[in-house]
């Protein structure tokens, strides 16, 4: 529609077709940017060591993301300072879709609360894409109602336990972390 009126407008003023073609091409390129993404390999920045839990998840997911988006998603580990270094690198990376950070709860919610000079703000320097593994998704409207009720309860699905402490809740379907001890210890 816009192209047609532009063409009409330009024809009106008798501009050569070559200029017109140039205009349309550049506008088509900027419009088509998202559909052509990704047109080169995408870096999955893991702020933790190779073979860490986050790294294992990142590698499993990256393979399938490569398949569905037709470009290589490669994992780059930037461990150090408990994840601070990688998170800082992620916060400073170009926001062009070619750097994606795979991070855990520790570097997203704990470190920046422990260190005033963490060098990144998880809420301001990053945009969320999706949770991968761990806690169940944020409580829905019904879950929030129950949260206000301040007691343990079961969601509509009938299988999600919602436990509430203070103003926030963690919901899960099964335990994902544990305490352990050497065999035979008491």
């Amino acid at each position, binding site marked *: 529609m816009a192209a047609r009126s532009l063409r009409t407008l330009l024809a009106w003023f008798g501009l050569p077709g070559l200029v017109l073609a140039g205009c349309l091409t550049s506008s088509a390129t900027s419009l088509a*940017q*998202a559909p052509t*993404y990704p047109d080169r390999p995408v870096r999955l920045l893991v702020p933790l*060591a190779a073979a*860490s*839990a986050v790294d*294992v*998840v990142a590698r*499993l*997911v990256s393979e*399938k*993301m490569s398949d569905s988006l037709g470009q290589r998603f490669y994992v780059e580990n930037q461990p150090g300072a*408990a994840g601070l270094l990688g998170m800082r690198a*992620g916060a400073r990376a170009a*926001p*062009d*879709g070619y*750097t*994606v950070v*795979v*991070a*855990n709860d520790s570097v*997203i*919610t*704990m470190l920046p*609360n422990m*260190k005033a000079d963490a060098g990144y703000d*998880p*809420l301001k320097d*990053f*945009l*969320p*894409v*999706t*949770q*991968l*593994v*761990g*806690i169940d*998704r*944020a409580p829905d409207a019904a879950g929030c109602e129950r949260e206000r009720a301040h007691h343990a309860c079961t969601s509509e699905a009938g299988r999600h336990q919602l*436990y509430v*402490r*203070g103003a926030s*809740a*963690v*919901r*899960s*379907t*099964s*335990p*994902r*972390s*544990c*305490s*352990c*001890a*050497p*065999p035979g*210890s008491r």
Partner: protein
Amino acid sequence: MRAAGIEMTHVPYRGATAAVNEIVAGHVPVGFTGMSSVVPLLADKRVRLLATSTSSRASQLPDVPTVAETVPGFSFVPWCALLVPAHTPPEIVARLNTAAVTALKDPTVRARLAELGFEVVGGTPEQLAVAVRAEFARMGDLIRAANIRE
């Protein structure tokens, strides 16, 4: 520990693998770590599970009690997520979300993650935003209350 009225000495390790190795060797009496670091050691009984940290028992570990059974209301679940630098275009965020969620639906990925003790979550960027804000506030309260500093 506060809720249970017990005291423990925190021994920091460079990663869960190093910590679990020390528990297996008996150098550290008790540890608290992600399930994926421990599950592979269960088959030959190299560690003994005392408790899981979330609200209900693990389906694959029905005999292991939860901490919440002793300390009502206790819940702690590690998680991980995909983020992009702020100002990444929304169309790109949407494409990444679709690709990641599709990856999480793949049967081989799901099977492997379950084997490692992870629960597949997925979801929208908005759902993650809500979760991050809530958990950031909760951890902030907890960390300030316990005066935890690095």
